């Protein structure tokens, strides 16, 4: 199963994963979104993903997981990432902009915000 970018990415969007992905399968949404279906986060195209795992440790927000490791409360994110396959023209590889690395407290707070308590 391909890797998945979970909602922990939303509004954080570090993009370190984009630089490291060998096959450019990490994308941003660029289409029309009248029904607000596509939140501000990155997405992995599961058909392009080669399961190399290089992206997972790159994300400072720990937002990337293998498909089978996605917790139940984030299971909807698997299907959300898969939308990249049905709307290929609405997604593209983003231009990478350096972001400030979050502190451990910020990472914990982000997880808590999304209901992931460790």
């Amino acid at each position: 199963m391909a890797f998945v970018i979970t909602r922990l990415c939303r509004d954080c969007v570090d993009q370190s994963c984009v630089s490291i992905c060998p096959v450019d399968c990490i994308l941003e949404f660029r289409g029309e979104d009248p029904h607000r279906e596509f939140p501000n986060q990155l997405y992995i195209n599961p058909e392009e993903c080669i399961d190399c795992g290089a992206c997972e440790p790159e994300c400072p927000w720990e937002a990337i997981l293998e498909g089978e490791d996605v917790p139940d409360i984030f299971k909807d994110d698997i299907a959300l990432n898969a939308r990249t396959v049905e709307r290929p023209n609405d997604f593209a590889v983003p231009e990478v902009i350096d972001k400030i690395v979050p502190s451990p407290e910020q990472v914990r707070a982000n997880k808590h915000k999304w209901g992931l308590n460790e």
Partner: protein
Amino acid sequence: MQTLISYSKMLYMNRTRVTFRVDPKLAAALRQVPNQTRFVERALKDALGKSCPLCRGTGRLVGGALRVSDFREAALPRLERAAAVPLKGLVRFGKRMQATDLELEGRPGGQDVEFRIARDEETLLSGRLDTNRGAVHLN
């Protein structure tokens, strides 16, 4: 005489006249060639027989996506950062060369990964990726 006429007819059967314009210098050079028809025929056949491997003589690139081996299916170890960067380079090379496949295979007993970039049956580049150091060794 009748034999000569028949022989001439045979020579020109299934032949089509082709006329084209060239610059004067080329025309002068061609006039020096003893058998111009045969020379031009051979030159044309030679050029037409060597079509571009990328566009296959069509003038348009019709390449599909590059298929890269799946790490899980190939039972490859997780890709470390050091090796991800050169692998990205190999993928980009493959796409530029209109390759169809980037095959990856683990080497027994080691962390190295053998790779082969191919366009259909033709190998364009092969070697191994040292996943610890991120070095690429070509065959």
